[in-house]
């Protein structure tokens, strides 16, 4: 991750602040920075979103293409995640610099979305064993100001909400051959049900306390964090510990409780904002 160097004094100040429940930007430990969300920003995609979380900026483009179902699941479509940590965000990501972090994020997303509760994958299948929708979710990180996982999680969910997949008809011709016909009516589309999709919440342990939505400076003070994928019901659909330090069972329990609370709040806020924006939102001005 884009690293910032901090002096001992700055670190001490941040750690004591977290202890007192007042972070350097005035937030309490369980508060997110204000976010700005936009859907339908790229016209060439099936769905897209842009999320700005203070200094972190994420652009997600979803493209639905047709492919062959995986042999292990012949009657399901699937999602493919790709994260591009562009060198725009930080010179550190140049070349293969961001690759490790990018695979880490993509793996987390793949694991959390690959559950049958999350999305009706069978609806993405057109012809068993022959043809299905492959939904490519491509994430570009334009700016990195801490808390990449959570920001990407929110942006991905928003982009999938915005995604419109054309309706497909399968017809059998006179010789018994199946023929696929894709509707070209822009309103004749399938929308994805996002209500069971999770958001990611990173709870970072700083000193004796833990915070959500850590800034870059706070990330530099944090030795261990837990990334949780929380769905609207408050259940965990994935959890990973990251960082170089170990955690006691008590603090893990506290962190999970915080993660659940914040995750549910985030989910309900996000779905109400998404409803406000609407399914077929078009761009109101990109990056301005």
């Amino acid at each position: 991750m884009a690293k910032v160097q901090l002096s001992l004094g700055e670190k001490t100040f941040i750690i004591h602040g977290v202890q007192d429940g007042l972070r350097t930007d005035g937030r309490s430990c369980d508060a997110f920075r204000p976010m700005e969300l936009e859907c339908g920003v790229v016209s060439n995609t099936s769905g897209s979103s842009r999320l700005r979380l203070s200094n972190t900026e994420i652009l997600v483009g979803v493209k639905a293409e047709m492919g062959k179902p995986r042999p292990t699941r012949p009657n399901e479509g699937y999602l493919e995640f790709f994260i591009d940590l562009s060198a725009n965000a930080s010179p550190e990501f140049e070349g293969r610099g961001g690759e490790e972090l990018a695979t880490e994020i993509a793996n987390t997303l793949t694991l959390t979305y690959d559950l049958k509760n999350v999305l009706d994958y069978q609806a993405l299948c057109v012809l068993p064993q022959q043809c299905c929708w492959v939904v490519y979710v491509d994430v570009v990180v334009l700016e990195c100001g801490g808390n990449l996982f959570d920001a990407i999680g929110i942006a991905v969910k928003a982009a999938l909400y915005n995604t419109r997949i054309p309706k497909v008809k399968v017809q059998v011709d006179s010789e018994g051959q199946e023929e696929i016909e894709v509707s070209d009516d822009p309103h004749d589309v399938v929308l994805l049900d996002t209500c069971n999709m999770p958001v990611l919440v990173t709870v970072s342990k700083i000193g004796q306390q833990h915070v959500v939505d850590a800034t870059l400076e706070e990330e530099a003070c944090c030795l261990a964090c837990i990334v949780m994928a929380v769905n609207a019901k408050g259940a965990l659909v994935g959890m990973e510990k990251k960082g170089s330090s170990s955690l006691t069972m008590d603090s893990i329990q506290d962190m999970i409780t915080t993660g659940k609370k914040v995750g549910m709040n985030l989910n309900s806020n996000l779905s109400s904002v998404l409803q406000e924006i609407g399914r077929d939102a078009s761009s109101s001005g990109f990056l301005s």
Partner: protein
Amino acid sequence: MPGDFKRIPCPQETFQPQLYCKSSTKKQLLQENGKRADNRSLDEIRPIFLKAGVVSQARGSAYIEACNTKVICAVYGPHEVQRREGFSMQGSLRCEFKYATFSCPGRRQHQTDSEEKQMGLVIAQALQPAICLHKFPKSQLDIFVTVLQNDGSAFAAALTCASVAVADAGIEMYDVVIGCSLRQAGETTSVLDPTITEDFYSRSVDGDASNHGSVTAAYLPSLNQLSAIQQTGEIEPEVAAKCLQKCIEGSVRIFPVVSQCLIKATKRKAQKSQQTAKKDDV
């Protein structure tokens, strides 16, 4: 994931033949008498064989076998870091995790895939709090883990194996790391140390999929802390905490095996050095 076709001649895509079997009846997780398919009870771990010092040329090495799950690990270093970035008074860890191509039911690619990369990263992070990294500044320790046969819980076995190998290399450590896996099946049922048929797959659940999933944890017994947590599937937070607790209990049972193995390895080394000392005298 495309393979490297220039180096390895093989067809573009192949599938394991089992996929074409007409699917037989789904296996139940538990038998009627409440035991698992291999006659273990719910929280029984498989017997473990653990040996340190199996790769003679490595600084440290270990081999773990839990029935059909077999993992080997070698440690090289610490040595000077090749590409140094910035100044640090701490040593660094690098871990490469690899499934042997034949280790799983389906053939795996020869190249490290993203899952393996991720596992390597997690193992390095799990071992970091256990190793006195400040004792070897500016240098790097390489850990190579190969899964020879995967019959479930390979990752947990890899964690244990890697920590024994590091200890065998004579690296100063605060604690050993013990991995343990658990499969949650429904709110109340959980099986410890699952085999590959018991393991959680995202599509292996019929009906309500909530509270189905798997948890792997790495436990430091002396510090009484967890250094790695991996959870997949949908589990309620309260249940997840219980799962972690059970993983800790499982790890505590593995701990004596680890310490005995290390004591044995040390004894062997001591005997050898005595023998050589005697030869020198003669």
